[in-house]
């Protein structure tokens, strides 16, 4: 299963009204390409912090479902946050980790998640549930139940290395991502959108 397919399948299975935080790199770009919405926060920098952002959000919005789209490289970069999530007992926090044991956005250089099973680390840290799935059938079956049980929960999805063509960069200015997300998540009036588009470079 390609990562882009897995990201799209998870996006289709998200509960209505949930808030999503996506990590930097290809995962956020794939979510943006397949299922953009104001309720998605695309973290384009600050690698390693998607789970922290999701945790802060889940803590202050306990009535909302918060889903973090994360990658193995991101989780490993700030592994301690798994402990923070577990210690906070956030029942509305769902952590979906797309694991290809590689840094997919920089050329598929290896990570260490082939040696370190991230879902077992999460379980040991104190996540209420943590599961690993491989292939479309297992993923779809897991998604059918995933968001109806109390969190913190991790669903680790094994995906192939490599990138599919046609994945866009996140073209929305970061300040506009903030404004439109807060309009949904915090129910504050959207701030005037910046007219300029986020400057796009070819470097990752």
């Amino acid at each position: 299963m390609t990562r882009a397919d897995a990201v799209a399948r998870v996006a289709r299975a998200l509960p209505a009204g949930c808030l999503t935080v996506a990590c930097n790199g290809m995962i956020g770009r794939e979510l943006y390409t397949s299922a953009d919405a104001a309720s998605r926060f695309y973290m384009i920098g600050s690698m390693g912090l998607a789970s922290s952002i999701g945790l802060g959000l889940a803590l202050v919005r306990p009535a909302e479902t918060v889903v973090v789209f994360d990658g193995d490289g991101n989780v490993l970069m700030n592994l301690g946050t798994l402990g923070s999530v577990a210690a906070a007992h956030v029942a509305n926090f769902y952590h979906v980790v797309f694991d290809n044991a590689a840094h997919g956005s920089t050329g598929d250089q290896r990570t260490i998640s082939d040696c370190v099973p991230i879902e077992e680390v999460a379980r040991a840290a104190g996540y209420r549930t943590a599961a690993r799935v491989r292939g479309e059938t297992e993923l779809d079956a897991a998604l059918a139940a995933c968001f109806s049980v109390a969190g913190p929960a991790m669903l680790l999805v094994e995906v192939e290395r490599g990138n599919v063509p046609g994945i866009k960069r996140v073209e929305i200015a970061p300040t506009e991502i903030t404004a439109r997300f807060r309009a949904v998540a915090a129910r504050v009036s959207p701030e005037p959108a910046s007219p300029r588009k986020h400057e796009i470079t070819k470097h990752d």
Partner: protein
Amino acid sequence: MDAGSRIGQVGLVGRVGQVGQEGQEGQEGSRRFVGAGSMPQRFLDLLEQHGYNFFTGVPCSLFAGVTRILDAEPRYGYISAVREDSAIGLAAGAYLGGRQPVVFMQNSGLGVSVNALASLNQIYGIPVLLVVSWRGEGGRDAPEHLVMGAVMEDFLRLLGIPYVPLVPGTLGRDVEDLTRIMRETRQPVALIVSKGMLE
């Protein structure tokens, strides 16, 4: 001393000056540093008066008195973070959910937090009040604190983060001015805590 001379941020000096002048008249009541009890408790009361309502961070002995209260009082919902950049991420999530966050850290944590501040808060317009202890101030501290202690102010200026040292006599006014700048610019600002202030 007006706020323009107290808040050290090259790019915002003009604006800070205006803020300070605007605030000279008619708001003395809100500027006074009020609150009962110990200095740490009065400090937290002041932050709450200015709308701060999400607290996270990593401890330092220089503000141990504040952390003691945050830990003891469940109403603050204090989250003890594992790293300073994770605390910045937690605070960003809280802001996205409608809160006004504070992150407590030792200045060693500024180094840990550079990428979070630069590639999250500053480009997304996510404001946060950083309360940063000044270890290594004046070159008098344990060796591990001396380098960051010496360059901390340059470091904040380089990152473009407005900051002000905590001085009890002007704290109410400084928190008000910093908070106004933070809200106007939607950018991080820092309050610097020297030894002996909040222990």
